[in-house]
C-alpha cells in the first residue's frame, strides 16, 4: 500500500471514530437523543376529544421539570394555535400530534425539528431564553396547502398573554 493511501485511510477512519464518539457521549450524557416522537399514542380520530388538544395552546405545567406545556395540533393545512406567546426564560414542553396526515414541525432557529404523525404525540423540551419571533414551518409534504402551513412563537420579556 502506498504511503499516501495509508495516510488518508487512517485520517478517514479516525474522523469516523471521532464523530461516533462525540455523538455517543452527547446522546448518553447530554441527553441529545432524537426528538421523542411516538412514545405516547393517541387515537387520531379522537384528538379533539382529548382534554389537552381540545383547546391547544400554552398551559401552565403541573410538572416541576418545566414551566409550561404547549400543545399543538398539526392538521391540513394549519397549526393550532396559529400564534402563541411565551415568557422569555421559561422552559416549555411542546406536544404535537396530527389528526390526519404526517406533518413536520420545525421551530426555525432552534433544534426543534420533528414529525407530527397521526396516532403519536411528539414532544420536545426547550428553554426560550431570548425574546424574539420563531416561525414554525411544516417540512414534511402534506398536500396542496403545505407551503402555507405556518405558526409563530413569540418569546416576550416579562409576562405572557397566552392563547
Amino acid at each position, binding site marked *: 500500500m502506498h504511503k499516501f493511501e495509508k495516510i488518508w485511510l487512517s*485520517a478517514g477512519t479516525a474522523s469516523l471514530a471521532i464523530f461516533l464518539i462525540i455523538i455517543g457521549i452527547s446522546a448518553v450524557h447530554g441527553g441529545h437523543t432524537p426528538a421523542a416522537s411516538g412514545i405516547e399514542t393517541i387515537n387520531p380520530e379522537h384528538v379533539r376529544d382529548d382534554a389537552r388538544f381540545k383547546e391547544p395552546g400554552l398551559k401552565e405545567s403541573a410538572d416541576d421539570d418545566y414551566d409550561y406545556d404547549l400543545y399543538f395540533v398539526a392538521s391540513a393545512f394549519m397549526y393550532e394555535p396559529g400564534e402563541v406567546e411565551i415568557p422569555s426564560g421559561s422552559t416549555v414542553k411542546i406536544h404535537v400530534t396530527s389528526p390526519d396526515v404526517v406533518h413536520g414541525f420545525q421551530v426555525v432557529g432552534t433544534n426543534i425539528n420533528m414529525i407530527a404523525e397521526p396516532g403519536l404525540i411528539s414532544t420536545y423540551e426547550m428553554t426560550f431564553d431570548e425574546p424574539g419571533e420563531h416561525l414554525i414551518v411544516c417540512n414534511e409534504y402534506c398536500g396542496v396547502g403545505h407551503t402555507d402551513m405556518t405558526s409563530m412563537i413569540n418569546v416576550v420579556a416579562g409576562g405572557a398573554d397566552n392563547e
Partner: protein
Amino acid sequence: MKVFYNLPIENVKEGENMTEKKDRNEEEKQHHDADDHHKLDLRGTFMMVMTIGGLMVLSWFAVFILFMERM
C-alpha cells in the same frame, strides 16, 4: 497472382502469433508486484482526498457547534 506482404509487427516474439501476443499482454497487466503502488504518483489524489475530507470535517463541526448553541 497472390501477393504476400511481410510487414514488421511490433512486440511480437519469434514464433508467437497475434492471439498469443494479446494473451501475454493481458497476463502482464494483471501481474502485480508488491511495490507497484509505490511507482504511482498519488500526490494530486492525496491533496484532493485530504481537501474534500477536510471540508467534510469542518462542515460537520460547524453544524455540531450550531446545534450545541441552540440547546
